[in-house]
């Protein structure tokens, strides 16, 4: 039974997010005065064909650190969903 790994990659707070800043500026120009800040990241879905959640989680973390995110400037979060 495969798992769907939902991985969110975001820039670390200390890294300037120029895309987020541009979009934030546009939202404010549209009149959304209560919009305080905007950050842009990536959302990645990976289907992992593993029986057990432990192994699926191990692979999810490994690929997030190895390729999907760059730990020097990004953080990631991993969520696993059992799919039928």
């Amino acid at each position, binding site marked *: 039974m495969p798992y769907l790994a939902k991985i969110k990659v975001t*820039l670390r707070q200390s890294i*300037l997010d120029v*895309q987020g800043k541009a979009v934030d500026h546009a939202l404010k120009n549209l009149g959304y005065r209560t919009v305080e800040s905007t950050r842009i990241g990536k959302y990645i879905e990976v289907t992992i064909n593993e029986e057990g959640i432990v192994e699926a989680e191990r692979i999810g973390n490994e690929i997030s650190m190895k390729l999907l995110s760059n730990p*020097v400037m990004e953080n990631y979060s991993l969520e696993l969903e059992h799919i039928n």
Partner: protein
Amino acid sequence: MSEIIVGVVVFPGSNCDHDTEHAVASFSGLKPVMLWHNDHDLQGAKAIILPGGFSYGDYLRAGSIARFSPIMQEVIDFAGKGFPVLGICNGFQVLLESGLLEGALSRNRDKKFLCSRTSIRAVNCSTIFTTLYKEAEVLSIPIAHGEGNYFAPPEVIESLEEHDQVVFKYTDAQGLVTDEANPNGSLRNIAGIINRQGNVLGLMPHPERANDKLLGSLDGRRLFESLFRHISGA
């Protein structure tokens, strides 16, 4: 005398590979050989250059997918044996992603893709890539990138400076390292760094685009010349 082979890696999306080939071929005694990303054979190269461009469309992050290409596994071994590896622009991004150099490159501070001539100085002229430069001279070399904003944690920056691993810095026309002269927001105006062993250099500016009078500047030429003197033992 037989020709010395210099490998130029070609990833899908590389676009400075032929400029780099041209720069290498402009030195007699050197023979550029194009190395396809899916190959494993470095074809007897004595130095490897990773050219600029947008390898694998820069999907995910610049350089992140190229880092796992078959040829890069060979390049990483090659660098580990002490052979010279030069990464220009996207090639620098690939070197950082592969862990051969420390730090990362994020989007330019002012959001723009920058394509212009820039002033830099070689702040370490004792590397195998910079012996023919003088620290005081201001070099005019083009940049062309959207993600050239060099970042590393404070302890890494301190360590790079302490070990003279910062090789190029962005300066103004007088050679001063100022914030106004920093085109992309790189920490401490860093434009290029070398590894601790001194055989792997990455830089954002394009020396291959400043290698011919016709291109308006010859300031990049001595980088290749320094390297080629080193590999030919001259």
